[in-house]
């Protein structure tokens, strides 16, 4: 069965909704803010993400195709199987995203999504160029080995990403109670983009917020988050946005006079970890700011 490329098909929708949000904010004078260079950077990151997908996509696809040869079952492509695949893949997304914040090697790729000080639909398009190098595609292996075809797994992953577009907005306050309880929403994901200590490393959900509630990472929105990074970038240059954390991580890994264990720790410990304790992890920041 052939699955459509939902992300590419959604591009006109993305553009249309962006235009609507920009004009809506202008008319209402509330519901978020757009900044010229920030928006340009986000859109270029989005375009670069597509280019990177074309350039490096074969790595993940090759890996999945190879795994498919070892699959235990072929579950077919009934609606029920696709729905099940979607839910399990959302669990996969939760963990990829959690590693994306808790393992510096993966954060090096994901950090760029958090680098804007704004929160609007363009922020959703601020996507990584270096996802392939995180090797997080291994988290999709169980799905494929269980018998969900690689095409289906990529398709539901695309739907997941498209879902997350609309939640990057301040124009929507809260959704109905039942919806907020089960689904990831603008309110939940605003928290995820906050640099406020209590909001750091929370609400990793893609589509279903239930994973955060299940694994203890859910924090409801109280005061409006201060968006961005613990140390905000002083540049809008997309190349710097894309590669800065890789660069600083590699500098740490290859710094002189470290033990092998310390070098590995610079790659695998959470962002902010340092061998001499001169920096702070989100856990330390949270502990210091605990009420």
């Amino acid at each position: 069965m052939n699955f459509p490329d939902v992300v590419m098909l959604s591009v006109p929708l993305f553009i249309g909704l962006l235009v609507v949000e920009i004009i809506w904010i202008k008319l209402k004078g509330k519901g978020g803010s757009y900044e010229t260079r920030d928006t340009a950077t986000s859109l270029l990151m989005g375009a670069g993400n597509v280019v990177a997908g074309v350039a490096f996509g074969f790595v993940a696809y090759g890996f999945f195709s190879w795994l498919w040869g070892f699959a235990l079952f072929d579950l077919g492509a009934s609606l029920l199987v696709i729905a099940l695949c979607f839910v399990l893949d959302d669990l996969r997304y939760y963990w990829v995203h959690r590693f994306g914040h808790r393992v510096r090697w993966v954060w090096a790729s994901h950090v760029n999504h958090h680098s804007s000080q704004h929160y609007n639909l363009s922020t959703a398009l601020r996507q990584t160029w270096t996802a392939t190098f995180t090797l997080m595609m291994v988290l999709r292996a169980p799905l494929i080995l269980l018998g969900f075809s690689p095409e289906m797994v990529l398709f539901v992953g695309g739907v997941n990403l498209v879902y997350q577009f609309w939640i990057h907005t301040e124009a929507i306050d809260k959704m109905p109670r039942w919806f907020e309880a089960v689904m990831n929403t603008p309110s939940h994901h605003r928290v995820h983009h906050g640099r406020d200590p209590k909001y750091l490393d929370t609400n990793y959900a893609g589509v279903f917020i239930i994973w955060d509630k299940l694994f203890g990472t859910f924090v409801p929105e109280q005061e409006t988050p201060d968006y961005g990074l613990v140390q905000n970038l002083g540049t809008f240059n997309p190349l710097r946005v894309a590669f800065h954390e890789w660069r600083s991580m590699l500098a740490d890994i290859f710094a002189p006079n470290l033990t092998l264990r310390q070098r590995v720790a610079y790659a695998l410990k959470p962002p902010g970890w340092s061998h001499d304790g001169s920096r702070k992890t989100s856990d330390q920041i949270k502990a210091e700011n605990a009420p």
Partner: protein
Amino acid sequence: MPVWITLIIVIAGISGIVALVHFTGGSVRARLESKAGALKTWLAQFPDHPATGALLEPTGHAALIDLEDGRTGILWAMGRGAAGRVLQGGALQVRGARLRIDLADFTAPHIDVVIKDEPVRRIWAEALEAALTKGDENELS
């Protein structure tokens, strides 16, 4: 669809949206309205570097921050947001009304502060020179 058509659509789409943001007021830069405001913004960005005073650039697009540890921080408008850095090492270039601070920081390689008023610019240039040399002594601690 040939690659060049895709490319044109992408470039036109991005330019169109960026132009829309610009013409709906998106290029307005953040302004620090007062010393107290600058100190508050600084503290929000750098809670571990408490500040004692601030020198505001006349248009409010930048401020020098005196830090408790004797060093100097700089806060500047990043579009509608603000970015800051503790000055340590780096060089100052004066180009007409523009003071350009080059930092050995991949995420903030250049900071530009434009000051039209000559005497004010001189005060800033001196303060920056002093801060950058002072920062040199305990470089990259």
